[in-house]
């Protein structure tokens, strides 16, 4: 079913790269993922299944960043109040700033149904939580923490991060911290003694906000793609990818900020006026931190310093979804399991049918959907690569061979990330696997 790539428009000689086929496809406006109906169905179905928990993630992330803030005993941080479930997504509904999804601006109906009933039956939220019948919010926090820990990515384009160390940020944070602990001499005393402790927590909260604002965009994008696919308006993988590219450019300039609400008053820790934007301050660091890097899975790598399995340099981290081994999903020590478990509840029926025909059917759906998720994230990464190429280099139909050569060099440099021999990166990268349907 692998479609042969269309011939490049101009006469650039064939690439000699080991992923030459993929590079030719990218040059022809395609994705890293082969354009087959089966792939399209999988990635769109997964976007839909991913978007529903994501709708919860962004709401809860913002709730934690804005309301829970520095609560030392945040026992109930995963219980979002009604107000946040009804909070209008800025990119959906009638009053949207920029309408991406034609649906509701409030929480997705499937999400509301899941919050109410879960996999079992209607019972108080606390019981759902205790029986672990819930959205695995820990996964969203793990992504946030990956971004926090892999700071200094994409500098100097990404200025959000260096701002967190600026005096201005510290002053803003100081005001919010003092207001938050007002009337609590114990916490204020601790703050006096160890000022950096709460400051660092505050930085983490800023990343909660950053990721929440990033996903506020992605959820409606994925919902809309699913709807367009159902309506027959997306018919190929490049079309899906181009929708993402266009979405990225439309949304690129949206503000990234961190506001905290304490006793009805808004403290602007990172104000909108700082001019931090969605593309450079959230999307690119996110892709780098979560798709490529994250942290080694506790169940696959040894952190033993003498064993030298984990790289010394954060740049060499290669544990994101593009490299992840999905087969041990469901095992101890494999973090993506949390997300796979979340997506399992919201699979569209056509994907459930599809999985039932393969491998172990219902029994190993968790892994099958994990591999589809990997495919779909390769599609998203392709969109990011194409967007970067559009922003930094030349159009694909450029007639100047030098420009095309520059494009090619860019694509090759991107794919070289999947070929590096250090720390077994080359074997870990799943780019080669997703080229065929045998990998499921």
């Amino acid at each position, binding site marked *: 079913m692998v479609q042969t790539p269309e011939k490049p428009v101009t006469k650039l000689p064939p690439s000699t790269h080991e992923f030459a086929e993929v590079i030719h496809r990218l040059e022809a406006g395609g994705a890293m993922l082969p354009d087959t109906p089966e792939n399209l169905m999988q990635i769109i179905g997964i976007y839909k299944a991913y978007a529903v928990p994501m709708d919860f993630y962004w709401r809860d992330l913002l709730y934690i960043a804005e309301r829970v803030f520095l609560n030392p005993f945040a026992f109930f941080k995963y219980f979002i109040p009604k107000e946040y479930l009804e909070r209008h997504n800025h990119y959906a509904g009638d009053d949207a700033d920029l309408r991406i999804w034609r649906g509701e601006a409030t929480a997705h109906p499937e999400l509301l149904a899941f919050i109410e009933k879960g996999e079992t039956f209607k019972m108080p939220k606390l019981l759902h939580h205790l029986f672990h019948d819930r959205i695995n919010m820990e996964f969203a926090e793990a992504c946030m923490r990956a971004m926090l820990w892999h700071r200094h990515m994409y500098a100097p384009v990404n200025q959000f991060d260096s701002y967190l160390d600026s005096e201005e940020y510290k002053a803003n944070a100081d005001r919010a911290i003092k207001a938050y602990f007002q009337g609590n001499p114990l916490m204020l005393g601790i703050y006096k003694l160890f000022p950096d402790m709460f400051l660092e927590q505050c930085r983490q909260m800023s990343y909660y906000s950053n990721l929440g604002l990033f996903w506020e965009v992605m959820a409606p994008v994925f919902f809309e793609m699913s709807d367009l696919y159902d309506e027959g308006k997306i018919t190929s993988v490049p079309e899906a990818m181009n929708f993402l590219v266009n979405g990225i450019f439309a949304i690129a300039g949206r503000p990234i900020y961190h506001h905290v609400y304490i006793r009805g008053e808004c403290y602007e820790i990172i104000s909108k006026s700082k001019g931090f934007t969605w593309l450079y301050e959230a999307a690119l660091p996110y892709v780098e931190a979560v798709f490529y890097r994250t942290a080694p899975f506790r169940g696959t790598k040894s952190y033993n310093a003498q064993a030298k399995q984990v790289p010394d340099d954060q740049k060499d981290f290669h544990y994101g979804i593009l490299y992840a081994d999905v*087969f041990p*999903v469901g095992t101890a020590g494999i973090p993506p399991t949390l997300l796979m478990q979340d997506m399992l509840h919201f699979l569209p029926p056509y994907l459930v049918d599809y999985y039932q025909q393969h491998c*172990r059917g219902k029994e190993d759906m968790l*892994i099958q959907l994990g591999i589809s998720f990997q495919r779909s994230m390769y599609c998203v990464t392709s969109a990011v690569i194409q967007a970067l190429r559009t922003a930094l280099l030349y159009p694909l139909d450029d007639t100047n061979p030098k420009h095309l050569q520059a494009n090619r060099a860019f694509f090759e440099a991107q794919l070289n990330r999947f070929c590096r021999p250090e720390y077994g990166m080359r074997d870990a990268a799943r780019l080669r696997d997703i080229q065929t349907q045998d990998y499921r």
Partner: protein
Amino acid sequence: MLSVLIWFPILAAALVAILPRKIPANRVRLGALTLSGLVFLWNIFLLLKFDITQPGMQLQEYLPWNETLGLSYKLGVDGLSILMLLLNTLLSWIAIYSSSQQTERPRLFYSLILLVNGGTAGAFLAENLLLFFLFYELELIPFYLLISIWGGEKRAYAGIKFLLYTAVSGILILATFLGTVWLTGSSSFNYDTISTQTLSATLQIILLVGIIVGFGIKIPLVPFHTWLPDAYVEASAPIAILLGGVLAKLGTYGLLRFGMGLFPQVWSILAPTLAIWGAASAIYGTVTAIAQKDIKRMVAYSSVGHMGYILVASAASTALSLVGAVAQMVSHGIILAILFHLVGVVETKVGTRELDKLNGLMSPVRGLPLISALLVLGGMASAGIPGMTGFIAEFIIFQGSFSVFPLPTLLCVVATGLTAVYFVILLNRTCFGRLDNDLAYYPRVLWSEKIPAIILAVLIIFLGVQPTWLVRWSESTTTTMVAAIPPVEKVETRYIASLHQ
């Protein structure tokens, strides 16, 4: 009463054999399963009627048959055989359950298993030497067919090897039986009428050696064991369960009943040799298992090791060590059965038995998690981890034998340590690690493949935490048997006693 255990399965075998051709294999299997289940239930019923306080034969049956040959149809059950009978019927049922739904030539397959079931029961029940021999030989051809029709790649070779070794074993046993009866001038081959008291010690020793070698092939003891790895490995899983679980017990049972039972006076003279032989066998079996690359071969060699302990215990012949020997026979039967069954499942699902290829089967979604978990349990039970039946049996053996043969007993302890070594190798290579992403698309495990292992696992743990149910049946019988053996030349005992003074 007892005859039912023999003739019901044999009649059932005949019935299954003449079933119409058009009945599909899974129906034949179901029929065989029901019939063998009935036998098992009957066996449980007999167990309830069994009086554990009585040391002698119970529920006896007698029919004169061929007076001139001295052959009579005389059956009885005592503490030594009651558990063996139960093991036989249980494992036959398990073997049928664990056979494939689509077995080829199902009628022949299941009728042979039922025939084996009846024959083995007959051997355990027979109170007449010739009758025992008849049933003993009855095993020969069915097992040969079961190995060489439904076996693996080298089944023809393995089948013939098994046939030849077992035939030689039969010849030796028959020769000794005839010799014993003629030399003692006994009127018949009935077990209770034979008394070897009148024979000279030399003659008795010669006869006993015949018995030991004859049954030693079947057990098997070390130089005579070479048929075992081939036969166990080439046989399909259900047949391997029967071979290891039941047939090997026929050897140790024969040794105890006809070796120790008929020649108590000279038993103690040969005992030291036997003890060293058993210990050497145990060490050899475990060391060889460590070197194997094929998991079924490992399990097969584990059998050689475990049978060595039984020999040491029989040689020590204290009341305790004999109880241990019987317990070890039962434990080994069920542990080997679960291991062979699980290895069979792994082979059918993964398509290989190679240690170098297997990996990561514990993985919960794509692997075989329950099968691997039970494999870990079976391995631990086999290595003598407390809480499971293997430990109970081995510990009783060690406790019972140490006072008589300290050195062989210590060697056996070393052997259990080495058993843990190769089972950890096996479990590490098969269950742990990560799945190969190119190959790991294994089919799911059906419930019919899980149930036999679950039943056996429950039994292993139950007998491990509640061992009374393992030892209470044989206590009075073995105490009586030991009483017949004159005080052994227990040099080491005296030596140890002197150390205490």
